């Protein structure tokens, strides 16, 4: 059943990368929902599997080596993973769009930025070339780039402007869901704020749901309605921003936020936690956080804890989660 107000629902998604040397268990049976108009933050260390989750939704995992071994992704009740390629293409860039981690390499170096934006528009809306170009110019203006730069090539733009172009391209067809994969990580701190604020105002104007992948807790507290904490390919905790910041239930979340997690924290970056994530090619039998967890007990290394809902909409994957 499609729950009321859920735009996207991921169930039991598992992604593996099969390379010559090993199998990497990148995403391990995760579940996640995105409501209409909501901004959900995906936080986690590097290699946790955030990009893999976003790419699965859009069906643009590199296959091979990637393989989706189980799960369903429901978008407005449609199972995306079983959708024929033709239908999926109508969704990509149109209903669901993505902003990539690195703006420096996300644009085709030998096509003009205007062409690249207009191309998306022409792909999805049956408009003339002139009309598509006009809309591409509007999009450029919307992200704060003079339309006179329509015919410029990516190398003529700075990193921040490239990311604006990428955002213009992603929003060109008014998507319902925007997957923003660390949209500001590659940018200068001053540009970061600008780009995020711009995204925020566009989001409000266009009523787009956003999945915001980030390392930055400040960004999460400022822009997100709910949060999912990703650790070693699992979602170890999810809930509203208040749930996560004020009542964290998982030792990993606690660790991330340091000793005193607060919504108005001045500490913006994730706190490094001692130890490393388990080797994704050889995942432990029990809880994945076990090795680094200050509260670990015998049972933690024997079998993995199930996800339990400690409050409505606030779920934690830990034996020590306070029961409802």
């Amino acid at each position: 059943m499609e729950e009321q107000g859920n735009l996207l629902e991921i169930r039991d998604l598992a992604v593996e990368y099969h390379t010559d040397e090993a199998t990497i268990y990148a995403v391990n049976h995760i579940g996640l929902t995105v409501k209409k108009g909501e901004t959900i933050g995906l936080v986690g260390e590097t290699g946790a599997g955030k990009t893999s989750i976003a790419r699965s939704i859009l069906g643009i995992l590199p296959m091979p080596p990637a393989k989706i071994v189980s799960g369903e992704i429901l978008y407005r009740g449609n199972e995306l993973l079983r959708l024929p390629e033709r239908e999926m293409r109508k969704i990509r860039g149109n209903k669901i769009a993505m902003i990539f981690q690195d703006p420096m390499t996300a644009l085709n170096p030998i096509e003009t930025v205007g062409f690249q934006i207009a191309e998306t528009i022409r792909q999805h809306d049956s408009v003339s070339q002139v009309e598509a170009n006009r809309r591409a110019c509007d999009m450029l203006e919307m992200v704060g780039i003079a339309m006179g730069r329509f015919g410029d090539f990516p190398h003529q733009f700075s990193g921040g402007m490239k990311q604006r172009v990428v955002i213009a391209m992603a929003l060109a067809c008014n998507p319902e869901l925007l997957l923003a994969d660390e949209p500001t990580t590659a940018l200068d701190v001053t540009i970061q704020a600008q780009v995020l604020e711009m995204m925020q105002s566009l989001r409000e104007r266009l009523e787009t749901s956003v999945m915001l992948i980030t390392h930055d807790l400040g960004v999460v507290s400022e822009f997100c309605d709910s949060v999912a904490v990703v650790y070693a390919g699992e979602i170890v905790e999810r809930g509203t921003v208040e749930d996560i910041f004020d009542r964290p239930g998982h030792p990993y979340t606690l660790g991330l936020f340091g000793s005193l997690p607060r919504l108005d924290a001045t500490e913006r970056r994730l706190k490094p936690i001692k130890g490393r994530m388990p080797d994704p090619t050889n995942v432990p039998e029990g809880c994945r956080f076990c090795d680094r967890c200050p509260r670990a007990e015998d049972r933690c290394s024997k079998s993995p804890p199930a996800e339990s809902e400690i409050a409505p909409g606030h779920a934690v994957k830990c034996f020590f989660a306070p029961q409802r």
Partner: protein
Amino acid sequence: MGKFIAKRLFMLIPVVLGISFIVLLLLAITPGDPAKMMLGTQATPERIAALRDTLGLDDPILVRFVHFLGQIVQGDFGTSFMTKRPVFDEMITRMPYTLLLVSVSLGVSVVLGIPLGVYAATHHNTWKDNGAMFISLFFVSMPVFWFALLLVRFFGVELRWLPLSGIDTWQSWILPIVATSLGFVATIARQTRSNMLEVVRQDYIVTAKAKGLPERRVIYRHALKNALIPVIMVIGNMFGLLIGGALITEVIFGIPGLGQYTIAGLTGRDYPVIQGSVFILSVMFSLVILIVDVVFAIVDPRIRAQSGRNNSKKRKVGNQIEEDPQEIEA
């Protein structure tokens, strides 16, 4: 762009002069005496010395070089020692054969090589890819003369399908072109394939897919165009090899082109012929490299920016404000 081309044309002069001088030098230090070859083994030393004197063979290298340059600026390449005919006229009549052989072979290599490379890349790691690459490795490694002889033997002698030698009909061109181009079909295919495999891993290809573009458009518009940039470079470099290959093919198939002329000149120590041919071939090669660079600049805006920076910048600033989006046609 015009300035860029003019500059490059100007740079061509020292290159060609340098090559001509080196040829002269090499001819002077290699053994063998043209005068002796012209007069035969019976000739007396006096007659040989007299002929050497008339041919100017005993002059210092620099004098001969200046003399050569003086001739060239007048469009005169001297007279062949052997045939006594003007080298220039001879080259003009022979040039079309070589140009035809080289350009058709180049065309064939490009037209077959690029699709083959794309095909292999889009079927990466399947038996189709492996098969295509194995066969092309085979052709890349096979020397042109050997392959040409095999073709003559098989299609000319055994099957008698195609003429052995000479260029009386269009069929006579088939074997020479196949012999010259097949190795390059393979080279271009391999190069295209490896560039494609490199490009499809780039982020902007993922972006193109994420925009909802069909696979074909992603491959041909976004990936192939980028992958071809290094291939253009390879094609330019290939041209020199192609001329080398054509020299041999012309001799094997009896095509009266520049190659045959050059080789005849070399074996007969016919200095004017050698110098003239090498001069023409090096001009041809330099022009091709120039064309490649221009094509390069047209395809790749990053290079265009370097070669014609000033003009494009000025235009941009001027257009910034009053540009009407309706006018921006793709």
